[in-house]
């Protein structure tokens, strides 16, 4: 578990590399209750959507990014905001690589410690998804961002 004082601008998060399969795509879509055919039907994806295969759906990309961030923060890390922009689809047989770096560190007026991250998901040299995350981390070993509610939580 990290605490706010252990984080500095420019810190790199541990890289996550994952070999995507058709199962990854279909499982991710169904786990998020996304029944749209471009995430499970190869022919629909190719013939209707004009892409080369089924591809990771949006909520599952969010799930990968959530995992990537909380792998680093530990369980007390609480994501307040997550943005991601999908520039290229991620297909079966791609090896996706998720990387992140700390862009900003601060404490808000309510005393919550925040870390802002720039994240990317790339396949080879191609950036498929650009992302930003704002995650609350404990300011001390006794602090717990999950206990914040109402005006004390300002994501």
């Amino acid at each position, binding site marked *: 578990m990290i605490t706010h004082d252990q984080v500095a601008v420019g810190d790199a998060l541990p890289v996550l590399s*994952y070999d995507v399969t058709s199962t*990854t795509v279909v*499982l*991710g879509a*169904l*786990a*998020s*209750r*996304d*029944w749209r055919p471009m995430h499970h039907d190869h022919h629909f994806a190719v013939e*209707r*959507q*004009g892409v080369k295969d089924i591809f990771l759906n*949006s*909520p*599952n990309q*969010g*799930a*990968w*990014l*959530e*995992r990537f961030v*909380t*792998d680093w923060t530990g*369980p*007390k890390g*609480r*994501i*307040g*905001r*997550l*943005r*991601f*922009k*999908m520039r290229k689809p991620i297909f079966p047989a791609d090896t996706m690589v998720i990387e992140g770096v700390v862009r900003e560190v601060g404490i808000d007026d309510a005393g919550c410690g925040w870390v802002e991250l720039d994240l990317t998901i790339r396949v080879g040299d191609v950036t498929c998804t650009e992302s930003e995350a704002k995650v609350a981390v404990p300011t001390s070993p006794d602090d*717990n961002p*999950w*206990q914040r*509610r109402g005006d004390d*939580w300002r*994501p």
Partner: protein
Amino acid sequence: MSALPTDVEALIGVLQYEEAGEFPVERGYFWTSAASVENANPILWDDAVAEEITGGPIAPLSLLSAWFRPHHWAPGRTVEKLPLQIHFDLKARFELPEAIMTENVTTFHEPVRPGDTITSAQRLVSVSEEQTRRLGTGRFWVIDVEYRNQHAELCGVERWTGFGYRRDTPKDTP
């Protein structure tokens, strides 16, 4: 630059499709979601850790939109019910047969817990002029979805950017 059709312009900023999810939040989805990305975060798997840190089990935050996605089929339903209905309304209104989501920004507030009933509501934020991109010619639109639990507490707000398009035929492409 042409203005938006008045019927579309009139919908911008209007809260639409406020409705409760079709089922109470179910913990099985928490594990399926975590398994789909091999997320070992103990607050998702270990009840004692969840109790200590989050006051009990909570859903993966990124699963927020799952709670308003309708069943693929239900008794008596003759037409497929679609999530993010405004997105599909715009596809139909502009006669754009294909669409993809290009950007998502989610702000997370109260965590979602097993047994919660999540109500969602959608709001059209903007629609672009028609433009041509790699996939085809169409429009971008931005839609907000607000999620509240049975106590009317805000659980999160998703902002989706979609691109509805028609694939350009060779004769359309110089």
